[in-house]
C-alpha cells in the first residue's frame, strides 16, 4: 500500500517535466497510479470481502508515537473503488478534455495525481493522526486545483473559500481526534473501533469530529464552498467534488458510526444536518441555470442523503448508504463529465441557451440519461436499488425514523425533479432556442462517460456484483441471521409504492417548473437574510475589520507604549500571583547594618533626581551618585570585591558619558507622548512596588541551604585561593567569565564601529546627511563613496 502511495507521489513529481514532452497525453502516464491501485484493490478484494482486512504498519516518528498504519477493509475497498477506479477514468478523460496547448497542464496533472494519492492515503489510514495529515493534504491540493485558473478572481475566491472552510473544519476535527485518542489511549483507528471509549470527553470529541466531516462534505451550513468550487476545471469537479474528496466527510462518519452512533448527540445532529442538507441542496438545484452548478447543488443534496444513511447507525441504513455511495460516485461523475463534454462541444453550460444537443450527441446523451435516471431513482439502475433500500430502512422503524423518512422522501422527489431538469436542460430541443452548434467529440473523451454510465446500469441489473462489498461493510454492525441482500425486486412493498410516488411527484414538479421558479424567486427574497454564502462573506469582512482594529490598537508604533505594555504585563501577571498565593512572615528587619538606611536614602534621592533631571549633565552626575552609593551598600553587605569593581566601573561609565554628552545638547528635548505623564509615573511606580514585594517574598522563599557552602569549603584546597568570590569567577565558574568577556568584546566592536563610522561622516566629502542615511552602512565605510549618492 505504501508502494502505491509512493507511486502517486513519484508520478506527481514527474508530471511537470513529462508534460513538457508529452503535452496533454501526460494524463495517460499519471493515470498509471490510480490504475495500478485499482488493479491491486481488485486482487485484494476476495480476501477483504471474506473478512480478512489487509493491514500494513510502518514506523514513522517513533518518538512521537506516529505510525504509517494502513489498512484495507471493506469500507476502504469501497472508497478505493471510487477514488482510484473512477479516478483512472477521469485521468483518461483529462487527456482529451484540455486543449492541446493549454497552459500549466504539467502543474495540473501533478497536483491532480498528488490529490489522488492523498485521497487514497485518507481512506487507507488506520491512524487518526495519519488520517488527519492526508485529510489536510486533500484540502491543500483541492485549493490548488480549484484555483487552477489563477488569473480569474472568481476561481481564486472559490479556492480560498474551500480552503478556509475545510481547513477550519479539519482543525476542529483534529482537536476531536486528539480528545478521542486520549480517551481511548491509542490513535489506532481499528483499535478504537474494536473497543470504543465511552463517557468523559468522548461525546464532545465526536461533535468536533462531525464538524470536520460536515465541512468536508459540504453539509448545511458549510455547503456554499462546493457550488463556488465549480470554478475549477470540470474533471476536477467530477473527481474531487463528486466522487472523491467530498466523500471524505461521509467516509469518516461511515467509519465511526458503527461504534459511536449511539453516543451523545451523534444521531440527532447527523440526521438533522443531513436531512437539512438534502432538502436545501435539492431545492437550490432546481433553480440553477448553469448545468454545473445544478449538479453541484445536487451533490450537496446527495451528500446529505449519504450522511443520513451512513450516520444513522443501523445495519439496514448502512447497506443502503454503502450502495448509494457507489451509485452516487458512478452517476455523479458521469454527469459532471457529461457537462464537461457538452461544454467542450458547444462552448456553453447555460441550459437556457443549449438546444438540440441530444440529437447531435446521441452517445453522450444516452450515457447521461442512464446516470440521471440512476440519480432520480428509476429502475433498473443502481440508484433505484439504493434509494429503495433507504426507504425500507426508515419505513420499518419508530417515530423518529418516520420523520427521517419524510425528509428523505421530500429530498428524493426534489432529486427526481432536478434530474429531469438536467436532462432537459442539457439535451432537449427547446422551442424558441436556436439549435446549438456542436463539434464532434474524441472517443477518449466519451469513453469514460459511457463506461461510468453503463456501470450504473450493470450493477442495477446485477446487484449481486455490488452486494458482497456492501454487506461486508454493513457487517461492522454485526451479521443478522437473515441478510437482506440488494435486489431490484422485493415484491409489492410499501417502499416500492413510495418510490413510484416519488417519481410521479418529481415529474410533476418538473412539469410545473415555470411556476415553481417564480415561487423560488419570492422564497429566495424572503430567505435572503439567511443565505449561507453571504454569511461567509460577512464573516470574512468582519474578520478583516477586526484585524485592522486590533492591529491599530496593538501596533501604535510608539516605543514607550510597547515598553509600558511589557512592564504592565510583568507587573500584573506575576504580581497578582505574588499577592494571592504568598504571605509575608513577620520575620522582617529594617536593616542589617545601621548605616544601610542612610546610604539607601542617598541612593533613592539620587535615583529620583536622575529621573527628574532636565539637563543631561545633571542626570549623569546623579546616576554616578547612585552607582557610588550602591558600591557603599556592597561594602556594608559584605562584598569588598564588588565595591571595588563598582567604584572602577562607575568611574569609567562617567567618563564614557562625558565623552558623548560633550557633543549632545545640554537639555533633553521636549517630547510628545502617546502616554501621559501620569500613566508613565503610575506604570513605573507599579513596577517598583512589584519588585520590592518580589524581593521580600523571594528572600523568604528559600528552602534549601545555599549552594555556595561547598565553594567556601573547597576554595582553598581545589581553587588554591582564599578569596572565594575570585575563585568562583576564575575557577569554579570560569566558563561564565569567558562568556562575559566575549560579551564585552562584542560590545566593544559594536561601539567602535558606531563611533568610527560617525567620525568618517564628518569628512568633507559627505555633506548630504539624509542621502548617506539612505545609502546605508556600506557607503559610510568609504569616505569618497558617499559623494555620488548625495542629493542636494
Amino acid at each position, binding site marked *: 500500500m505504501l508502494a502505491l502511495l509512493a507511486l502517486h507521489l513519484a508520478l506527481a513529481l514527474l508530471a511537470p517535466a513529462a508534460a513538457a514532452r508529452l503535452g496533454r497525453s501526460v494524463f495517460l502516464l499519471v493515470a498509471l497510479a490510480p490504475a495500478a491501485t485499482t488493479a491491486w484493490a481488485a486482487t485484494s478484494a476476495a480476501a477483504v470481502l471474506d473478512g480478512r482486512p489487509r493491514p500494513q504498519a510502518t514506523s514513522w516518528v517513533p518518538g512521537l508515537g506516529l505510525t504509517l498504519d494502513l489498512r484495507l477493509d471493506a469500507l476502504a475497498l469501497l472508497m478505493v473503488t471510487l477514488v482510484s477506479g473512477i479516478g483512472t477514468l477521469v485521468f483518461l478523460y483529462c487527456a482529451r478534455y484540455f486543449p492541446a496547448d493549454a497552459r500549466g497542464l504539467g502543474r495540473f496533472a501533478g497536483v491532480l495525481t498528488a490529490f489522488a494519492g492523498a485521497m487514497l492515503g485518507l481512506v487507507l489510514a488506520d491512524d487518526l493522526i495519519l488520517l488527519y495529515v492526508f485529510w489536510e493534504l486533500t484540502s491543500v491540493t483541492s485549493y490548488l486545483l480549484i484555483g487552477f485558473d489563477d488569473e480569474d478572481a472568481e476561481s*481564486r*475566491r472559490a479556492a480560498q473559500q474551500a480552503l478556509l472552510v475545510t481547513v477550519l473544519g479539519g482543525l476542529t476535527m483534529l482537536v476531536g481526534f486528539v480528545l478521542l485518542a486520549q480517551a481511548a489511549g491509542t490513535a489506532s483507528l481499528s483499535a478504537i473501533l474494536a473497543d470504543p471509549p465511552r463517557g468523559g470527553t468522548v461525546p464532545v470529541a465526536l461533535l468536533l469530529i462531525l464538524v470536520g466531516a460536515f465541512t468536508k462534505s459540504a453539509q448545511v451550513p458549510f455547503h456554499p464552498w462546493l457550488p463556488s468550487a465549480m470554478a475549477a476545471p470540470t474533471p476536477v469537479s467530477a473527481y474531487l467534488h463528486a466522487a472523491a474528496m467530498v466523500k471524505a466527510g461521509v467516509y469518516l462518519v461511515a467509519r465511526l458510526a458503527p461504534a459511536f452512533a449511539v453516543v451523545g448527540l451523534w444521531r440527532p445532529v447527523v440526521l438533522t444536518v443531513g436531512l437539512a442538507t438534502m432538502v436545501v441542496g435539492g431545492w437550490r438545484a432546481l433553480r440553477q441555470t448553469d448545468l454545473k452548478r445544478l449538479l453541484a447543488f445536487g451533490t450537496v443534496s446527495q451528500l446529505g442523503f449519504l450522511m443520513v444513511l451512513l450516520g444513522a447507525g443501523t445495519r439496514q441504513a448502512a447497506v443502503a448508504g454503502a450502495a448509494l455511495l457507489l451509485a452516487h460516485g458512478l452517476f455523479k461523475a458521469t454527469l459532471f463529465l457529461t457537462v464537461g463534454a457538452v461544454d467542450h462541444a458547444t462552448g456553453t453550460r447555460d441550459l437556457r441557451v443549449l438546444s438540440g444537443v441530444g440529437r447531435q450527441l446521441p452517445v453522450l446523451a444516452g450515457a447521461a440519461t442512464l446516470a440521471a435516471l440512476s440519480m432520480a431513482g428509476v429502475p433498473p439502475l443502481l440508484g433505484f436499488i439504493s434509494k429503495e433500500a433507504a426507504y425500507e430502512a426508515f419505513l420499518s422503524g419508530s417515530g423518529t425514523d418516520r420523520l427521517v423518512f419524510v425528509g428523505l422522501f421530500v429530498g428524493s422527489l426534489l432529486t427526481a425533479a432536478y434530474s429531469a431538469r438536467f436532462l432537459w436542460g442539457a439535451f432537449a430541443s427547446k422551442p424558441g432556442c436556436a439549435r446549438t452548434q456542436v463539434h464532434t467529440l474524441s472517443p477518449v473523451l466519451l469513453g469514460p462517460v459511457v463506461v461510468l454510465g453503463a456501470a450504473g446500469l450493470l450493477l442495477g441489473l446485477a446487484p449481486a456484483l455490488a452486494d458482497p462489498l456492501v454487506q461486508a461493510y454493513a457487517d461492522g454492525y454485526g451479521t443478522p441471521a437473515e441478510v437482506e441482500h440488494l435486489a431490484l425486486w422485493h415484491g409489492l412493498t410499501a417502499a416500492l409504492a413510495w418510490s413510484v410516488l416519488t417519481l410521479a411527484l418529481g415529474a410533476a414538479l418538473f412539469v410545473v417548473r415555470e411556476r415553481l421558479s417564480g415561487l423560488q424567486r419570492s422564497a429566495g427574497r424572503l430567505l435572503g437574510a439567511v443565505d449561507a454564502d453571504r454569511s461567509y462573506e460577512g464573516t*470574512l469582512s468582519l474578520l478583516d*475589520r477586526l484585524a*485592522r482594529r486590533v492591529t*491599530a490598537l496593538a501596533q501604535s508604533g510608539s*516605543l*514607550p507604549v510597547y515598553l509600558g505594555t511589557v*512592564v504592565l504585563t510583568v507587573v500584573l501577571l506575576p504580581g497578582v500571583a505574588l499577592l494571592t498565593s504568598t504571605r509575608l512572615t513577620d520575620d*522582617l528587619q529594617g536593616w*542589617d547594618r545601621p548605616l*544601610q*538606611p542612610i546610604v539607601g536614602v542617598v*541612593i*533613592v534621592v539620587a*535615583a*529620583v533626581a*536622575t529621573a527628574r533631571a532636565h539637563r543631561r549633565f545633571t542626570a*549623569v552626575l546623579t*546616576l554616578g551618585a*547612585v*552607582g557610588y552609593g*550602591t558600591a557603599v*551598600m556592597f561594602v556594608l*553587605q*559584605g*562584598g569588598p570585591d*564588588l565595591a571595588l*569593581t563598582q567604584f572602577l566601573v562607575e568611574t569609567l*561609565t562617567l567618563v564614557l558619558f562625558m565623552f*558623548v554628552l560633550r557633543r*549632545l545638547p545640554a537639555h533633553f*528635548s521636549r*517630547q510628545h507622548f502617546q502616554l501621559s505623564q501620569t500613566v*508613565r*509615573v503610575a506604570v*513605573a511606580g507599579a*513596577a*517598583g512596588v512589584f519588585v*520590592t514585594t518580589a*524581593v521580600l517574598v523571594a*528572600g*523568604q522563599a*528559600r528552602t534549601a541551604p*545555599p549552594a555556595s557552602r561547598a*565553594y*567556601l569549603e573547597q576554595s582553598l584546597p581545589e581553587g588554591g585561593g*582564599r578569596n*572565594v*568570590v575570585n575563585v*568562583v*569567577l576564575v575557577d569554579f565558574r570560569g566558563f561564565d567569565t569567558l562568556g*562575559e568577556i566575549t560579551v564585552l568584546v562584542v*560590545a*566593544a566592536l*559594536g561601539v567602535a564601529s*558606531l563611533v568610527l*563610522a*560617525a567620525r568618517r561622516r564628518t569628512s568633507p566629502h559627505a555633506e548630504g*546627511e539624509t542621502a548617506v542615511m539612505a545609502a546605508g552602512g556600506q557607503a559610510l565605510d568609504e569616505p569618497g563613496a558617499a559623494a555620488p549618492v548625495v542629493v542636494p
Partner: protein
Amino acid sequence: MSGNLTLALTVGALYAAGTYLLLQRTLTRVVLGLGLLGHGANLLLLQAGGSAGGVPFVGAPAGASGVADPLPQAMVLTAIVITFGVSAFLLALAYRSWVLTGEDDVQDDVEDRRVTRRQRTEDAPVVRPEDEL
C-alpha cells in the same frame, strides 16, 4: 531567613526610576534608565544571598551572622561588567542616532502610524477577499 526592608525599598525605588526613564523618547534617558535598572538588579542579586555577613575570605573572621554568600557576589560582579558593556553600546547607538538625525529621540514607527490612520479613516467598507489578493 529574614528580609532586609531597606534593601528591598531601595531596589524598588531604583526599578521605579529606571522604568520611568525607560518610558521616555530620548535615547540618553533610556540609557540612564537602564543604568538605574542595572544597579537595582545588582542589589536584588546581592539581597538574594541573605543578610549581611563577614567577607567571604577563607580564614577571615566571620561575624555574628556568619559569612556572606559568595555565589550572588560572583554573579553581581559579572553583572556589573556586563551592564557597563551594554551601557557603552547603547550610548554609542544614541550618539549615532544623534549624528545621523540631529536628535536622539525615538520617533513613532511610520508604518504603524499609517495602519492606525487607515483604520480610523476607512473602517466601514467591506473588503472582498479578491480585492486584497
